């Protein structure tokens, strides 16, 4: 702890500011006087963008070769219980933080909440602060706090600005997630209580993960509890049913954040708190999770094909895409995990953009039923263009970001989980089926009278979508800057798993010259020792 404190509190603690700036913004927005509600969105956007600027600055100063946590900051919080405010960022969380930093200002500036803007903006800022907190927390208690707190603003956004069945959707969303995290809280306390040493108890993630003092069976139970909480959040089949409802009923901005940021809490949690804290148990349970992931890929795709509501279709496509992420994570190879982490970002970008586009269609046509939409390409060619790029990214067309992520995941998992990978690859084809078919029904053909009057995108709307398309193309063409920063952290995580379980990563499919033979044996012995 003393070492952490020494490295942490010197100078400008950027991570604390990342969380504080939107939180302060939320308070400021909440105190905007009645009658000046028009100020809410500009002020809120300014705070959100300031946090976004900080996250970009973080990206610039991040040391890509360091596998450990950087910019750590530690402060004692509840000393009696060994709980501290401990935040830090590594290659695994870096891009999720940047995504959170950039997507909120875009959503706040570009999407009209269609209702009272003041509380909407304030809740959005609370959500941004809590999301940053969840991605940065390195203390189990602190993580749980943020993991739960994100529910409240999201609930408010769905309940306050959603569509006509929002009450049901919001309640379902809240209670599903809370039921999962209830078990996780018991598991957190159990882990902390059972690994207590003479030095007292601690909730510090690094200390607990390095100590690994739980009995094998206990760790497995605890992992199972964590996994349930994260599986609900991701969501994995069969605990996914809250997602289509929540997505469909949420306002566009809420859907974007839900898909881009909040689902990532589940997969990020699996990596950070599942793999790191319970390496042996993750290996033990990996077949279960990978199977659920593959079922999710196929099931999500099939159900998406059958949807009549465009937004629900995108929601089910999320189930399929998040299945890929889980498959990559539990491949336990550097390539697979890298792909999984990259795919989290990719899914955030492309599904976020898809929800924005569906929102734009709804604003124009006041329906999301695919059967009532037709030939929009004639009436709104620019929108059709944007939709094409985003959809193809989601399908996984080479040259766009989705391809890179899915390809890495499939390569990475083929080495360790061959048959699961074969089935998952079929999911890529299904994705092409349901998205292209939907595109065909909505945009192709000759528009009837109502659809022919659909307005094309306004400049503001184009500006909202532009950064998404830029990211889609950039990551698709040149993913190296991202992967270079993710790799050291992923590699060290897999080494950690090897050190603490009987798992050994498969040999790289590279012809290794003979002299490395002795090195290999040395590494093996070291690993076991």
């Amino acid at each position, binding site marked *: 702890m003393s070492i952490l404190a020494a490295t942490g509190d010197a100078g400008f603690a950027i991570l604390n500011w990342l969380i504080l700036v939107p939180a302060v913004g939320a308070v400021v927005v909440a105190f905007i006087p009645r009658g000046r509600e028009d100020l809410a969105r500009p002020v809120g956007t300014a705070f959100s963008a300031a946090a976004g600027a900080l996250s970009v600055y973080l990206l610039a100063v991040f040391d890509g070769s360091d596998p450990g946590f950087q910019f750590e900051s530690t402060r004692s919080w509840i000393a009696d219980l060994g709980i501290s405010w401990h935040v830090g960022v590594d290659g695994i969380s870096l891009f999720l933080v940047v995504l959170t930093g950039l997507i909120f200002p875009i959503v706040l500036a570009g999407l009209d909440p269609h*209702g009272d803007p003041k509380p909407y903006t304030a809740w959005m800022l609370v959500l941004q602060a809590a999301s940053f907190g969840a991605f940065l927390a390195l203390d189990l208690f602190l993580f*749980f706090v943020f993991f*739960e707190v994100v529910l409240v603003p999201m609930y408010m956004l769905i309940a306050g600005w959603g569509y006509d069945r929002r009450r049901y959707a919001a309640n379902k969303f809240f*209670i599903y997630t*809370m039921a999962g995290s209830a078990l996780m809280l018991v598991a957190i306390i159990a882990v902390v*209580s059972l690994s207590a040493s003479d030095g007292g108890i601690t909730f510090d993630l690094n200390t607990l993960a390095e100590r690994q003092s739980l009995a094998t069976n206990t760790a497995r139970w605890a992992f199972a509890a964590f996994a349930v909480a994260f599986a609900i959040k991701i969501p994995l089949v069969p605990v996914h049913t809250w997602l289509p409802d929540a997505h469909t009923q949420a306002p566009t901005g809420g859907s974007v954040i839900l898909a881009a940021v909040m689902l990532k809490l589940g997969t990020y949690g699996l990596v950070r708190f599942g793999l790191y804290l319970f390496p042996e148990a993750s290996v033990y349970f990996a077949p279960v999770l990978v199977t659920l992931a593959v079922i999710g890929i196929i099931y999500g795709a099939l159900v998406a094909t059958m949807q009549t509501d465009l937004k629900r279709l995108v929601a089910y496509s999320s189930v399929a895409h998040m299945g890929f992420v889980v498959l990559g994570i539990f491949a336990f190879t550097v390539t697979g995990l890298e792909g999984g982490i990259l795919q989290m970002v990719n899914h955030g970008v492309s599904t976020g953009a898809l929800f924005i586009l569906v929102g734009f269609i709804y604003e124009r046509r006041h329906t999301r039923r695919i059967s009532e939409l037709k030939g929009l390409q004639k009436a709104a060619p620019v929108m059709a263009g944007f939709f094409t790029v985003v959809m193809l990214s989601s399908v996984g067309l080479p040259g766009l970001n989705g391809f890179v992520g899915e390809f890495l995941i499939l390569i990475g998992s083929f080495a360790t989980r061959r048959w699961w990978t074969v089935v998952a690859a079929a999911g890529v084809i299904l994705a092409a089926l349901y998205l292209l078919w939907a595109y065909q029904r909505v945009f192709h053909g000759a528009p009837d009278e109502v659809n022919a009057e659909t307005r094309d995108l306004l400049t503001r709307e184009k500006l909202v979508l532009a950064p998404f398309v830029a990211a889609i193309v950039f990551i698709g063409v040149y993913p190296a800057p991202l992967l270079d920063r993710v790799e050291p952290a992923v590699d060290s995580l897999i080494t950690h798993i090897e050190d603490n379980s009987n798992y050994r990563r498969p040999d790289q499919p590279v012809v290794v010259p003979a002299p490395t033979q002795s090195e290999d044996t040395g590494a093996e012995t070291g690993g076991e020792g």
Partner: protein
Amino acid sequence: MIPVLGQVFTAPSIDWWALAPQLILLGAALLILVVSALLAERCPAWFSGVVALVAGAGVFVSGFYLWYDIRDSGPRSIVSGALSLDGFAVLFTLLVAVAVVMTVLVADAYLEREHMDSPEFHALLLLAATGAIVMASASDLIVLFLGLESLSIGLYVMAAMQFRREEAQEAAMKYFILGAFSSAFFLYGIAMVYGSTGSTGLAHARDYLNRLDTAIVDQPWMLMLGFALLLVGLAFKVAAVPFHFWAPDVYQGSPAPVSGFMASAAKAAGFAAMLRIFFVAFGQSRTDWSPVLGVLAVVTLVVGVVMAIIQTDLKRMIAFSSIAHAGYILVGVQAGTSEGTAAALFYLFSYSLMVLGTFAVISLVQWQDGQPLDRFEGLADRRPLIGFALTVFLLGQAGVPLTSGFIAKFLVIKAAVDERTWWLAIAAMVISAAGAYIYLRVIFAIWRRPGAVDEEGGEPVAAPVVPPASGFAILGAMAFTLVVGFVPQFLIEFARDAVPVLLG
């Protein structure tokens, strides 16, 4: 020395300062009664309220004084072993003081609006508060019973004070009969414990059991029966299932400020007595009573949550939710450890403030036909700060982080896990997730924008008038809930230092 019935009675030396909280409350109650009786019509309307407020504040200050006194010179037994002066007693003294101040502030506008007699109300409130403090500090079962009765009798009358409403009378009658019933159980329990240990003094009973070998107590069933009867009596008071039937009717029928006082101070006093008796005096027999309390906790949680979910009246809903919260506190009590006791104390303190705040908001929106949930629709739109405060109280009761309610829940679960009672920890947390629905329903209603189109329509509530005193009380409770949620360390330390000790 005074000869009484041929024996020499030596009056115990009394540390009057240590009795300051009780004396202040009693004195203020008598002052209100005398002055209002003598001056009658000429007594200004504000008089009794101000006296009660000053008395509550005085108790608070004297509580702090005693806290530092105990820290410097250690806990001690006063009035020849009848009462304990320890951190535990002081914590409850402070809690009762807060509850009195909150209730007086909230009741001010309520009494005026309902044309109720304020001197009686305030005098009864102060007497009930005295009883609550006596209960928390008693170290003899008979003294404890005296406290219990003073508290209960005050509450019986307060429940009936709104005599124009039929529900109030029914509620009071129910409360009185069931309360008397539970007192009888409690008394019988005292008799059993006396029979098997030879004393009503808790310290004596503990010492007796500590040097127990089977030869001395040849009738262990009598002691067990004593435990059971004492537990039943107290379970009535804290409204634990299956002794909870009075609570929903009484909370619903009583004036909202009184319901708040019942859910906070009266419940806390019941738990104080439970902790004193079971954790302190009968801690040795933990294996006998702890599983019973564990089962009681789960049953209480399930029934409280399930029944709260199906209510449509907000007061009744909060009554059932208050039953569920008794279940969480029992989870802490059953641990039978210092951590569990500290967790229960923390829970009681934070829950009391939340429930007082909730009833304070409810009392603003008073309707002749009760408080159906749809009366609260759009509250946040009309009165944003009050709506936000109610949201904080409800989220706190749901156990959402950054409120005191989360830390409280966390601590009781931790106490259960530390004792390896996994089933209880898991059951309590899973039920809490279902319980979130209770509060979400209300939150959804109060944040619903008037005129919004959704599956359920309802007339939006008229903007309630917020008297300054109520507003002050609500904001204070909200600030406490949030501050403890963000920086709970001070209250955790306070609860930890207040774990009771028993002095011979």
